């Protein structure tokens, strides 16, 4: 083995010049390609930001890559037209934090039930949950709407929060995590000490899966935050609008005449997510790797 490794090392040292040139050229091309893609991802957001600092006249004159000085004016225009951004922000915070909290607690509980206990029909139940992940949400849409109206919870946040308890996707995520990290020994030791099952779950299991909870929390909050169709269907009072919903207001005549203010409005709806992403991008990207990459 050592000899082979040595031979390989030798071979690498004596790579002919032409090949080394080729290597450099290819590498440069790859970087150029990557940078172009990078610009494609960032440019629209940057242009939007620039437009948010420009006046309508300037925007009509053409594109600019540098910010102007009308940010304050655009902001005043938005506020003069009662753009409900502060209100919507807090509405979205309430909905996304409550629904994610419930989702985390109960999804982890459900997943825990599949790894910590053994009973008949368990595998069947788990396959059902996996199957539920495949069903498109649209199928239940009309029935859900009718149910919400019949239950008299239309135009409230209840139908946007409570159903989060049953999220097949996050159950799957936690089950994957438990599969790799759960150890029965601690739980059994706690049982011998006389701890109840609920107490074991609340005081021992939950603290032990904090990394998974953190990852799933970010996904849950972002997912709930970005949900558009649900609130659009179920909320009718403007004061109760969520963040994605106020975006649609910007396309109405009330706002779309002032292009700078409109751009600022759209940009403001992006800012909270940009901040979250700036802080948590590493967690998010690793989280996708766990969720999708390792089945």
């Amino acid at each position, binding site marked *: 083995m050592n000899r082979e490794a040595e031979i390989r090392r030798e071979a690498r040292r004596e790579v002919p010049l032409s090949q080394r040139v080729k290597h450099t050229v290819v590498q440069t091309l790859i970087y150029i390609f990557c940078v172009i893609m990078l610009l494609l991802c960032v440019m629209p957001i940057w242009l939007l930001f620039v437009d948010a600092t420009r006046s309508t006249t300037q925007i009509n004159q053409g594109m600019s890559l540098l910010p102007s000085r009308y940010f304050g004016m655009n902001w005043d225009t938005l506020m003069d037209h009662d753009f409900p951004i502060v209100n919507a922000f807090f509405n979205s915070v309430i909905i996304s934090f409550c629904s994610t909290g419930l989702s985390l607690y109960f999804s982890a509980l459900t997943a825990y039930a599949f790894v910590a206990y053994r009973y008949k029909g368990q595998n069947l139940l788990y396959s059902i949950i996996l199957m539920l992940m495949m069903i498109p949400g649209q*199928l239940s849409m009309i029935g859900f709407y009718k149910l919400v109206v019949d239950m008299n919870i239309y135009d409230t946040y209840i139908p946007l929060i409570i159903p989060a308890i049953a999220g097949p996707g996050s159950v799957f995520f936690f089950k994957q995590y438990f599969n790799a990290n759960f150890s029965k020994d601690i739980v059994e030791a706690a049982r011998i000490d006389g701890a109840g099952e609920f107490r074991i779950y609340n005081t021992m299991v939950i603290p032990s899966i904090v990394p998974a909870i953190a990852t799933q929390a970010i996904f849950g909050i972002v997912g709930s935050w970005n949900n558009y169709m649900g609130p659009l269907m179920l909320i009718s009072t403007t004061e109760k609008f969520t963040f994605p919903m106020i975006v649609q207001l910007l396309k109405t005549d009330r706002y779309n005449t002032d292009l700078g203010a409109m751009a600022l409005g759209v940009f403001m709806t992006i800012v909270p997510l940009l901040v979250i992403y700036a802080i948590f991008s590493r967690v998010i990207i690793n989280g996708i790797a766990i969720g999708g990459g390792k089945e």
Partner: protein
Amino acid sequence: MEELKTDFSAQANAEGEGAEAASSLSPSGRKKKKFKWDVNYYGILFVIPFFVVYAIFSAYPMVYSIFLSLTDYAGYNREISVIGFENFTYLLDQPRFWQAFYNTVIMFLMTFAPQLCFGLIFAAMFTSKTYKMKLKGLFKGVYYLPNIITATSVAVMFYTLFQQSSGGMWRVLVNLGFIEDGYNLYLYEWPSRILVAFISFWQWFGSTMVTLSAGILGINPAVYEAAELDGANQRDVFFRITLPIIRPIVVYCVVTSTIGGLQGFDIAYLFLGGGPSLSGGRYATETIAVYIYKMAFDTGGEMKYNVASAASVYLFIVCMVVSVLLFRLTNVNEEKQAKRAEKRIWGGERA
């Protein structure tokens, strides 16, 4: 509950763990006389909230939707009566429904084909051992960024950027000579469709790329070392080793993207509201989901809940057929077994 005990011991043994628990339980299982609380019943207790909430807020609405699709429930109609499959045949006669279906599929393909290609190319580049890249983390992070932003904001952002005369990107297209000055992209069938597809691509390409590169990074390095020793070149390594091994993940991407793509709503709805309109009451960028939503809820619409439900049943059937076909075609079960075996053998080392 009583029944659950009988097969318990077999189950536990099959699982290969919890044998201790099984031995303590099996006597009570055999007696079957008195109900005895077992700690494992907490497992059932703990999944109850999930299934109860799912039953109320998802399963029941699904069944209810299917029921509504067989009725005449529209508008403020209080008396609902079953009319059979009329809504389903009605939809088949609607050019607008077929158009929506066509739009959904064509815009999905225009999104997904480049998404998968670029995703694979970038994943291969970021994981390449020959061309060790720097700043990988930065590139990945930025490519994923669009996916995190609210789709509605993305749609309106691009709406302003491609708007005739005032949009920055529109100006770029004019200056590059792709379109004439004064050309309104939003009035034409294909330009608007391409834009919707482009926006979806912009939002989802990073997600595919990250998932695929995670899959490639999960491959045992020993496989590559062996290939290198055998003198395999870059192309061979990618097509003969990497691609076959990550096939389950590619399938996962294809299935999730397809189901997501068939349900596409936010971007199509907020970008142009499904427009521009075509002859015969059809729309150029109206997806099935947008069609369903408009049928039921759009202000000034007819509130045809029954037709909307029927359309959602069609959508459900298509999604199911497509995902079953995709899984079958790609033999994911076989791959899963292979992967499981690989895990068993390499498990310790890979971690």
